[in-house]
């Protein structure tokens, strides 16, 4: 029954020219091939390892662009192509194919992953220059890109899950890339364990899908979800999947790993912990939005978690002194916005925010890496200042990224954030709109603080005084990303009815619109005033010289410490979860295992010995005794058999 259904729902592949689409498998295959070569031969290849990785990414990106052009040439409802690679698992009536699926959603994602990934790979050639494990770095990066592409291209839940765990593995390997430092190794472990909590819930969700639908194929599951699932079942499945998204996308309460993940090399932070992997959770919600809609309640949970995370992480970002940790908390906060949009059913806007964020946050991480490069690995903002003049290209692109994130029109970030707030306002979710605007104020504030502390004012240390600009291999990707962070918004004309929303409508449905709330122009005016006003306020505090911000900071010390330590959630987890866990493990290891389990085994062994002490007395040790017994036994058997016959 399921198979006939699958045939019914099979994509319309016949009757239209597929063009270059059958080459789709090459998009993930190229990075995989390069990763394999670099993994085994990376050390011998030397500088060539970087070129190989960049070459694979270039090829992958070029093919992805061709794919998307071909897909865009089809009519809206025909924008779907599923390529069957091979049969993977066949057990009775349960089949899982290894297939890849290209629609407007996955097409957008592969453009982001390969495009931004390519720029970050080029940048890495400069940033990782001289590292003793240069080849291995590129092997891991390429492997990550492969898994990420499988995640977004997979045509069923199992392929998605494969990619999902794969990117988690690469994240672990790359956070701990400089594993000689214990902190880095611990950060990698923390990231892996924390995300696994969500992953386990997600796996249970996928198992429930198998039970309810008998298949993992997206086409069948989403096509029949309305008829198959009760509201309660849909809510359970959706929330289990969302738990996976919460872990991967570092939402409250599983966000604690992302700030620590900054221990990895900066290109890793840009690619994995800003542009792509952490957005996998958003992708998952968008991909499975049908299930969330059947449930209804799950969408509210998504919105609420997004809101809490957005506000919480924004305040944390305000209290950090470490350049990369500001960006990390900012990423958590921006991901919150994406979930808010998804929760409001504005899936297209969530996806656009994802793309925009990949540009400006990827840019800001790379620029931060460039700053660290010029400042001898310094990340404390208090040690910087006046870098715009000494590192003009890095500084200018950094500034563009920050303004875009602070949502000043006409930068890309404005189009992304404003559209989400507009939908909240117009569909009657006024509380979301108000809190979202508060979040926008805090976002602009921490971005202003970041920019004015690092780029403006006077250099506060010798290192800042003598900072130098990075080589072109690092600045050119910065410039290209800055162009995107600036212009992408008005090029694709983002708004609820804009070109981007129309492009993804076939995959994600239309953006909801409502008659309520304020007129659009008023909303734009409010957003502009909020962003620009906050930036000016931070300029007065941090760069005008009129306010002694150090004194201000000392006066607000308790608040500052609260924000800096992320509201002490890490410490809370350490006492409430980690300490009892360790104590329980101790009891299990030293009492239960050594006492009970080993004790049982020893008792069995001991009684066997005692029994044998009696039995071994009958052994003579003479070979001929045994041989005779053998012989007598054989004769006995023969006689017995003979008598029976």
């Amino acid at each position: 029954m399921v198979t006939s259904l699958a045939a019914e729902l099979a994509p319309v592949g016949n009757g239209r020219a597929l063009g270059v689409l059958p080459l789709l498998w090459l998009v993930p295959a190229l990075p995989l091939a390069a990763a394999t070569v670099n993994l085994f031969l990376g050390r011998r290849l030397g500088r060539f390892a970087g070129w190989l990785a960049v070459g694979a990414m270039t090829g992958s990106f070029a093919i992805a662009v061709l794919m998307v052009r071909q897909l865009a040439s089809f009519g809206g409802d025909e924008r779907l192509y599923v390529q069957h690679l091979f049969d993977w698992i066949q057990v009775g009536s349960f089949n899982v194919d290894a297939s890849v699926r290209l629609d407007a959603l996955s097409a957008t994602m592969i453009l982001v992953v390969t495009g931004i990934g390519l720029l970050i790979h080029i940048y890495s050639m400069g940033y990782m220059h001289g590292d003793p494990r240069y080849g291995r770095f590129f092997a891991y990066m390429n492997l990550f890109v492969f898994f990420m592409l499988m995640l977004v291209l997979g045509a069923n839940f199992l392929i998605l899950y494969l990619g999902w765990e794969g990117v988690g593995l690469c994240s672990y390997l790359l956070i701990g890339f400089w594993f000689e430092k214990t902190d880095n190794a611990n950060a990698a472990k923390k990231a892996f364990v924390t995300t696994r909590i969500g992953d386990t819930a997600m796996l249970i969700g996928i198992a429930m899908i198998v039970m309810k639908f008998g298949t993992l194929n997206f086409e069948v599951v989403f096509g029949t979800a309305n008829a198959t699932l009760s509201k309660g079942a849909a809510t359970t499945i959706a929330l289990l999947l969302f738990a996976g998204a919460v872990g991967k996308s570092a939402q409250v309460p599983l966000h604690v790993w992302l700030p620590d993940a900054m221990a990895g090399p900066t290109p890793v932070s840009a690619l994995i912990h800003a542009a792509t992997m952490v957005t996998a959770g958003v992708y998952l919600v968008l991909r499975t939005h049908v299930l969330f809609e059947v449930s209804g309640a799950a969408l509210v949970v998504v919105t609420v978690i997004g809101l809490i995370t957005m506000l919480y992480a924004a305040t944390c970002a305000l209290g950090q002194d470490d350049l990369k940790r500001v960006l990390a908390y900012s990423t958590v906060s921006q991901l919150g916005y994406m979930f808010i949009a998804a929760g409001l059913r504005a899936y297209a806007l969530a996806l656009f925010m994802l793309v925009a964020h990949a540009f400006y946050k990827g840019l800001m991480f790379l620029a931060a890496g460039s700053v660290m490069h010029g400042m001898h690995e310094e990340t404390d903002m208090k040690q910087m200042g006046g870098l715009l003049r000494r590192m003009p290209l890095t500084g200018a692109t950094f500034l563009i990224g920050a303004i875009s994130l602070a949502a000043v029109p006409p930068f890309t970030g404005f189009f992304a954030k404003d559209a989400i707030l507009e939908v909240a306002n117009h569909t009657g979710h006024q509380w979301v709109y108000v809190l979202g605007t508060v979040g926008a104020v805090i976002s602009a504030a921490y971005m202003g603080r970041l920019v004015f502390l690092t780029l403006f004012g006077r250099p506060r240390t010798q290192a800042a005084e003598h900072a130098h600009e990075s080589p072109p291999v690092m600045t050119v990707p910065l410039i290209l990303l800055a162009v995107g962070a600036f212009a992408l918004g008005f090029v694709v004309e983002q708004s609820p009815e804009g070109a981007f929303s129309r492009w993804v409508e076939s995959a994600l449905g239309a953006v909801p619109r409502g008659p309520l709330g304020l007129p659009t122009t008023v909303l734009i005016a409010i957003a502009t005033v909020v962003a620009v006003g906050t930036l000016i306020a931070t300029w007065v505090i941090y760069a005008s010289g009129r306010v002694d911000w150090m004194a201000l900071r000392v006066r607000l010390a308790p608040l500052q410490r609260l924000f800096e330590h992320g509201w002490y959630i890490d410490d809370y987890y350490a006492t409430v979860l980690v300490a009892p866990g360790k104590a329980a493990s101790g009891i299990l290891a030293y009492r239960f295992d050594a006492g009970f389990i080993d004790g049982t085994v020893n008792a069995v062994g001991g009684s066997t010995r005692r029994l044998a002490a009696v039995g071994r007395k009958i052994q003579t040790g003479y070979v001929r005794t045994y041989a005779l017994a053998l012989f007598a036994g054989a004769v006995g058997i023969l006689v017995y058999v003979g008598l029976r016959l």
Partner: protein
Amino acid sequence: MRTPIAYFLLLSGILFALGTMGVLIRKNALLIFMSVELQLNAVNLALVAFSRLHGNLNGQVLAFFSMVVAAAEVVVGLAIIVSVYRRSQSVNVDDARSLRW
């Protein structure tokens, strides 16, 4: 005229009895070993004889198998004897009683 099967079986039985006696009464490990080989060859002879009687190759094939197994067994057995000799400077099986307790 074909030799009757009884002669072959008689020879085979004599060889097997000699081998068995050797295993039972000898103390030198190498001689015990040779006696075991004698037993095996007695069985091989019987197998080939029956093969000839029935006019098919099954018995001969089985004889080949048993030769291969015998060869493998010789390898292991000789290795054990050599290492026993290295420990106790003797191939007398009665001296190897220390494995008992």
